[in-house]
């Protein structure tokens, strides 16, 4: 199945989807050293987003979240790609300065955790195997 959205940041990535219906706060909500979600009560609490195709409605929280993504990319704990329903500035800027492929305007209800996904930021497509 191929989903078409909007380009936020170009580049290609392939991997396993990790999906949540809840927003993600990269500042404070994710441990940048381990990649684990640490927001109390979050449906992904304790799970690592490292190396995953992270699928979520949008970012939230502090504007410093963009640097958290940059830091994760440099450390090797970042997600391989970001797929949003409606991207906001923290994730958009974070993806761009970190060069993490990012696509939004995707119906994320069509993707399930564990599925193999291909993201093409330039053509703004998400292929679900």
């Amino acid at each position, binding site marked *: 199945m191929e989903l078409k959205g909007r380009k936020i940041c170009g580049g290609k990535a392939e991997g396993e989807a990790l999906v949540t219906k809840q927003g993600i706060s990269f500042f404070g909500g994710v441990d940048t050293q381990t990649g684990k979600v640490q927001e109390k009560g979050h449906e992904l609490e304790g799970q690592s987003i490292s190396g995953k195709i992270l699928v979520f409605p949008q970012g939230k929280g502090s504007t410093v979240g963009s640097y958290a993504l940059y*830091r994760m990319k440099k450390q090797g704990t970042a997600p391989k790609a970001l797929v949003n329903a409606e991207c906001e500035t923290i994730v958009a800027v974070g993806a761009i300065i970190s060069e993490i492929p990012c696509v939004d305007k995707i119906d994320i209800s069509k993707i399930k955790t564990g599925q193999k996904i291909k993201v093409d930021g330039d053509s703004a497509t998400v292929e679900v195997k």
Partner: protein
Amino acid sequence: MKLTKQEKDMLNGKYGYAVKKSMGILVALGEIYNAKKLVEVTSVQIAGVSYDNLGDAGLEFLEELAKDGKVKVLTTLNPAGMDLENYKALGISEDFAVKQRKVIEAFSKMGILPTCTCTPYLIGNNPHFEQHIAWSESSAVAYANSVIGAYTNREGGPSALASALTGKTPLYGMHLNENRKAQVKVKVTCPVKGTWEFGALGKVIGEKAKAKPVLITGIKEATVDELKSFSASIATYGGAAIFHIKGITPAKVSAPKEEFTVTQADLVKAEKELDSECEVDFVSVGCPHASLNELAKLAELLKGKKVKKEFWITTARPTKKIADSAGYSKIIEDSGAKFAADTCCVVAPIKNRFKCMATDSAKGCYYAGAKNNFKVKIMPIEKLVEEACK
């Protein structure tokens, strides 16, 4: 998006690396948000200052830009990870201090003022009504848009820095009147008093309305300190960039159809959610940074008393300097309470250092739980001093 010839040159590298990289960020954002063009800004506030948040990667990013980057407008900074003068007394390591100083140096090299406060509007960065600015720091954004009536999006650290280095921001979001209109009316039917209660109100409204601009009625009066606390809370719990309070904030807005009511019970529920069963071992005031009025109040409450618990007051260094000359600082420090200027409990590396934090700040409560692993108890300033002296 239409770019002028000069903007195209900036994007192509004619004006150097920092300008090119910055324009890249701004143009990408502008395209995403369908901005018709870029607009000039009169000031910038930059978040992403604490070394605890930036790490070596963030520091590298800044040092790269500082090689040829110079700001085009008045640019102020958010709090750093430590009190730049007094960090040893607050338990910050020398290793951290070295890196934090490098971050400040990189910013200073670009012409950015190391104000290190989330309250730029209290210390000389004073936009006025309808001015376009590019601010990050969600509490300052909410304050600037709502209480001052200036125009800014919730910028991220890097996009604010990009605006500082180019003097521009894409014309979208809060820079357009149609996006600033109230979408939900909130009728407050109970009295709201004190920074702590305005913070609780921000939690109630933020959690319900999320990022939708609200028009709040039923608030008869609000001090700058209460508005400051409310701005921080609604931005934290709701992600709001703007709010309107009838009779208090300056923008003229019409009442939307959708509405909900906030009652005494709602406020009490929010206050209870920020009140844990725990033994307080840390008292914190100054999220956002304490104003002169708040320092005067604290001096009055602490005069002649001795605190028995760790008590930190976070504030902007310029504010502290005035408090020093007014004699407030001596009274406060004689009680055993400590000042931390340039920094705050949200960005200082204090995770796990304390178990139970008492504060008047709803925003402070959120980050204490999420980032520092403290339990929290929200209460008014008078009760905080009582708690500290027990």
